[in-house]
């Protein structure tokens, strides 16, 4: 169940899902750079395009309820502190909306990009840099992603088992130390099993794995993003 909480990717037949992760990453970078210099009109233009993107992607806002509460609070804090600093409502609103756009970018990327596809795309990119083993970096990221749910599930197992045995420790230091050693011990066992399973399937971290190919979707996404960014700087 930890998997459902950590990874938000949903496979869909949309432009955003089909695009190469590196291009999506580039698009986010372009928009973020434009957001730095854009006025309120520009920020609103970027926000509108992101909201339309979220609509096309059918972003499940209700799944992000807990996170959105936290981000809304942060947005309110930004609005307040900017207003207190500059006494300018428009400036404060721009700063808050800027933050909102960055969060929405992140949500769209998480929803439209499989983490392992992103790892492979980055690996293939890094491979072009001399002395950098991009394939190893990509394998490390992919393995970490597959281990993360194991870590959360193992932690939950240990905590639940202790609760069931009515464990109550008043000393937080002792509680954390005791819990950590159990979780670590369990994780080592699971890691060893995973390592054997990987070896049994002839895993080689330095082997280059195919990533998503570049396509017309990437060109369209990049063009669209660049036009929006340029438009936001003009407004």
């Amino acid at each position: 169940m930890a998997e459902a909480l950590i990874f938000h990717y949903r496979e869909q037949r949309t432009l955003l899902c089909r695009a190469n992760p590196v291009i999506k990453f580039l698009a986010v970078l372009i928009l973020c750079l434009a957001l730095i210099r854009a006025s309120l009109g520009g920020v609103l233009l970027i926000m509108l395009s992101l909201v339309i993107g979220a609509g096309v992607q059918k972003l499940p806002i209700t799944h992000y309820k807990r996170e959105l509460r936290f981000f809304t609070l942060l947005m309110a804090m930004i609005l307040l502190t900017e207003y207190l600093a500059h006494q300018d409502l428009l400036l404060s609103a721009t700063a808050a909306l800027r933050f909102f756009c960055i969060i929405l970018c992140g949500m769209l990327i998480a929803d439209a990009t499989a983490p392992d596809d992103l790892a492979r795309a980055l690996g293939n990119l890094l491979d072009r840099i001399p002395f950098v083993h991009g394939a190893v970096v990509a394998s490390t990221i992919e393995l970490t992603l597959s281990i993360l749910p194991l870590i959360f599930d193992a932690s939950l197992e240990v905590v639940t088992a202790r609760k069931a045995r009515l464990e109550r420790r008043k000393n937080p230091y002792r509680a954390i130390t005791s819990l950590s050693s159990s979780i670590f011990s369990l994780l080592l066992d699971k890691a060893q099993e995973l390592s054997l399973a990987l070896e049994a399937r002839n895993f080689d971290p330095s082997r280059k794995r195919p990533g998503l190919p570049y396509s017309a979707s990437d060109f369209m996404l990049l063009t669209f993003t660049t036009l929006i960014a340029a438009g936001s700087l003009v407004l």
Partner: protein
Amino acid sequence: MTPNQPELLSVTALNFSLSKEKHILKDVSFSVPQGSFTLLCGPNGSGKSVLLRCLKGLEQMQEGTIVLDGKDVSKDRKKRMQTIGLVFQDADTQMVGQTVEKDIRFGMENLGLDLEEQNLRLEQVLQLLDLASQRSQRPRTLSGGEKRRLAIAGVLVMDPKLLVLDEPFANLDYRSVVSVLSTLLKLQKEGHTIILVSHEVDKTLSHADQVLVLEAGRIVSSGSPREVLPTLSLHGIYLPEGAAVEDLTWLKR
């Protein structure tokens, strides 16, 4: 399995120790005919899992000979790794891909197969193991039986000559056991050679072509299910009272 099939695997005097005092496997010898279903059973701690790992090449045996398909592969660990498929007991720790399809592709990518070959094998295995409708699903959201079938699929696409499964029915409910057992019998009908490790012989004994009983690191009994049946309870293996070989399956229920 038709009688008098050639031997696919022959193991002679396999010894494995953790230290001078701790001998795990002692002079283990057996053979496995092509296309057969071999049940390797024994009480907990008898060395079953270690034997599988030695066969696969994950553990280094101290002595012994392993002949696979007529070739001595005792010292050729790489060959054993490529030709013997091992499915571990815990399906969760074998899942690497973010989706069922990606998890199955993982092994083929490790073998360096081209995309066309990967796609062909993927479709065949998805149909064979009834996972086609779950191809885009996250592996950890599958049921117990589906996870076990996925683990088998991930190994099967690598086209092993010998498929070895370590306690494939552990922690599965009745329906999942039936699903996995039916899948294994289907694979055997397709010509795969299977070694199945399980101490729960009441689920599978009637389907086995031969049974090997391992206790304290030694093969203490071997033969057809009928030959071995009277001795099983003497070696710590549970059997329903008065059960005949034909009764010892979960597919009949």
